């Protein structure tokens, strides 16, 4: 849709209005201390990527922003209001998709609009756009049980995008996709972000994905985690993977991340959970 957009403004910057503010957030599950102390500010329309060793609390942090769980300490606010419960201003794409098995692809995707009492015709109209962009055309009437993992993930992405929340919380949204589809989706998500001025927080395992898409990359440390690096990717959008400066950023983030992964692994070995 916006592939012909030649240039766009520089990354939305630090001087943007704060959208999400996390202040000394802690989270423990019984004896497991998942998040120790996370403090950060995510600006309006910023695209922030979170990366970190497996099991360090990335999903947990996303759920706290979404308001699904209550933190053990600290506060998170969105638009200046403390988060206490989920709301339609924050859309979530789960790592495990979480589709409704009794609803067809189309009905899964229109659910958000249905809940907001948007007339059925209009809801379907708006869903079609994302069905097309996620390559799900022809599968509107299929039930989730018949879809591949990658297709389920695309349904989950389309479902979150269709009801147009201001903030998108994406938990490894491309994890189950093949490279080809993933590249399409990355491009479309970038375009969406440029066009629709959303605030996006995306958890990913891929440094390349993170530096390609995000204004900022937050590196979470080994559990109990806090933010060990906050790297601003000072390059205009849309970016291409073969940009030399992008490679430099990638190397920088990778270096911090590998150190944390090493630390995480040695901690695991020393104190197996």
């Amino acid at each position, binding site marked *: 849709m916006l592939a012909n957009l030649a240039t766009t403004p520089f990354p939305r910057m630090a001087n943007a209005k704060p959208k999400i503010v996390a202040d000394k957030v802690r989270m423990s599950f019984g004896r497991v201390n998942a998040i120790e102390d996370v403090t950060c500010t995510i600006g309006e329309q910023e695209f922030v990527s979170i990366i970190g060793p497996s099991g360090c609390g990335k999903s947990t942090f996303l*759920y706290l922003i*979404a*308001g*699904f769980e209550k933190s053990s300490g600290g506060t998170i606010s969105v638009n200046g209001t403390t988060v206490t*419960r*989920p*709301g*339609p201003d*924050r*859309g*979530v794409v*789960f790592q*495990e998709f*979480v589709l*409704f*098995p*009794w*609803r067809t692809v189309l009905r899964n995707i229109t*659910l*958000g609009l*249905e*809940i*907001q009492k948007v007339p059925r015709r209009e809801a379907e109209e708006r869903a079609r756009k994302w069905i097309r962009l996620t390559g799900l055309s022809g599968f509107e009437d299929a*039930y*989730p*049980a*018949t879809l591949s993992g990658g297709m389920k993930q695309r349904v989950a992405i389309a*479902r979150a995008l269709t*009801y147009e*929340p201001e903030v998108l919380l994406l938990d490894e949204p491309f994890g189950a996709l093949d490279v080809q589809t993933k590249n399409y989706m990355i491009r479309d998500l970038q375009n969406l972000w440029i066009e629709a001025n959303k605030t996006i927080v995306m958890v990913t395992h891929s440094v390349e994905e993170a530096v390609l898409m995000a204004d900022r990359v937050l590196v979470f440390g080994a559990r109990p985690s806090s933010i060990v690096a906050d790297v601003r990717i000072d390059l205009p959008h849309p970016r291409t993977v073969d940009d030399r400066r992008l490679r430099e950023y990638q190397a920088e983030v990778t270096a911090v991340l590998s150190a944390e992964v090493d630390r995480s692994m040695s901690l695991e070995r020393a104190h197996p959970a």
Partner: protein
Amino acid sequence: MSADATILAPVRSRPDIRRLSLSIARPLISIGTVFLVWEVAARAGWINAFLFPPPSAIAATLWQELLSGELLQHIGRSLYRLLTGMALAVVFGTLIGIAIGMTAWGRAIFKPLISAFMPVPTLAWTPVLLLLVGINDRTTIIVVFIAAAFEVIYTVVSGIEGMSVRLFWVARSMGASRQQIFWKIILPGIMPYLITGIRLGSGYAWRALIAAEMLAASSYGLGFMIFDASEYMTMEVIYGGILLIAIFGYVIENVIVGRLEAATVEKWGVQVAR
């Protein structure tokens, strides 16, 4: 998968037809053999033909009862009681099951009650109900309700426990109200389990109903028909009643619930652990 679903599936190839006819033929052969041996034995005088009247005589009696309209009254009345009791059990059982599965107060109130009363055989309630409600349809309907409700509650609770909490998260992050969560998430989410509950519950309810009709039906019903026939020692009617109970029991449990399954669980491609 019920036999009914096999019938509904499109016929693709000859082996399918063969498998289908075999699946129908095998039980018919075994049942038919029993009847045949019985018939011959009764006619030849190897067994007491009064206590074991030949199947042909049972069929003739049933036919007469049917022509007189009596039989249809019995069947109709039993089905009316069963369906009314089942409908109540499904509605209240589902609501109570959801209250237990979703709320602390529901668990606190209902769980101890259910653990206490579930082991009580449904028929043990009949004398109490007779005194409270009297000899009428309401007593038998309540017996059906009790027999089925526990099973429905039980499966609904395990259905809710089997639902991922994330399904609720997704709905709430879209701004769903309590009502919307009930209608759009909980009800369809528990449906596969609820259907299992209805299947098991209707089986229990049918058995309990027939027994209750023997104790507490003023008139009509298959149970009453058998009980009444035993007063007059008309063995053909007794056996005919038993036969009909077996047939209707099978139809209710497998064909009707099978339809429900085909319309939901099988369409969605969902598996339910039994």
